[in-house]
């Protein structure tokens, strides 16, 4: 593993954005749709619920939406496969730059346990909010932003509002 080496500095944000934008453009040109992430999480949840109580899942329109698709299996969806690619791509870039390291990201003033609790809580809010908005920062923010969707821009502005509004209360975790 490359952990012994000093991690390489991050890419120039505009160049990284240019690269990301070209990937996004490719998705639009090839598939007619943008990128996403939270949809794959939803599929996993829906399949999980369906495995435990199929009748409960079948009675819920939200789960059903993820269990039925034209491919025959809920896992055979664009987003599931895209997310596998994200894991691979992230690992490739991280390995090349010597940034793959088993660690917990946190500020100096919070315990690891505390950070993990916040991560779970934040993730839960994120999952709920993403479903309410019909997408996360990738699907609504990035993809919806590029196609100039009104709801997507509303969403994106509110994400920044929420982040800045919560930043003060969360300063002990990060600073």
């Amino acid at each position, binding site marked *: 593993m490359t952990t012994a080496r000093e991690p390489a500095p991050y890419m*120039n944000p*505009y160049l990284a954005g240019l690269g990301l934008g070209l990937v996004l453009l490719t998705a639009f040109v090839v598939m*007619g749709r943008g990128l996403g992430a939270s949809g794959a999480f939803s599929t996993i949840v829906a399949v999980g619920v369906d495995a435990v109580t199929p009748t409960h899942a079948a009675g819920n329109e939200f789960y059903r939406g*993820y269990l*039925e698709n*034209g491919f025959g299996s809920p896992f055979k969806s664009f987003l599931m496969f895209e997310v596998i690619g994200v894991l691979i791509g992230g690992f490739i870039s991280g390995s090349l730059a010597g940034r793959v390291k088993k660690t917990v990201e946190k500020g100096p003033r919070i315990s690891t346990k505390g950070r993990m609790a916040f991560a779970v809580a934040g993730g839960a809010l994120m999952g709920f909010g993403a479903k309410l908005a*019909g*997408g996360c920062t990738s699907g*609504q923010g990035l993809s*919806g932003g590029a196609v100039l969707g009104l709801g997507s821009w509303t969403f994106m502005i509110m994400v920044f509002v929420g982040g800045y509004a919560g930043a003060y209360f969360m300063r002990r975790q990060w600073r």
Partner: protein
Amino acid sequence: MSRIDPRGWGLNQRLAAVALTLGALTLLGSPSPGGAVTLDTRELADIVESEVDHITADELADWIVQGRADYRLIDVRSPEAYAEYHIPSAESATLRDLYDYPLYRNEKIVLYSGGGIHSAQAWFLLRARGFAGSYILLGGLDAWTDEVLFPWLPADATPAEVAEFEHRRRVSELFGGKARAGGGAVEQAGVELPKVAPPAPVAAPRKRRKLHKQGC
């Protein structure tokens, strides 16, 4: 940040300059409009002539029994007629609805109406807009009723036709119909459509695909 001389600019300034230039140049043009279409009427005529524009009621019945989900079945009749009876897994969309109905150009779309006129018109509208996978259910709901729900065996049937009829008999029962042996035409008057649309036997009819799923 030097203002005039690009030679002194760093990478970020250059990127910004390119973005602004490209952004300003967009003001000169506008993307091609999506609503209007160009038609190759000869190509459409060829498709009609070569009869690849339709599927038969038997084929459709087999697809439904197999639980195939790689096509969309659209009932272009009125919502009232749809409510009374429709082929299992069909979605209701009138000709007017079709314009912004969530369909994709890469989908196989099967259209049907009572006879075949409305579905043919819908087929033309969709084909003109580039929905290359549009098909008409040959003979519409009438053919569905005669061939799938209440099939009949001609008296002078060949052995091959008899074997095929066995298959049809089973299929018709799955859809809540009943096969008519012998000269079925005489029983025509007694034919009545199944009251409620029975569910497809293998796979539950697909709900209308929800668009928000595509996002994220």
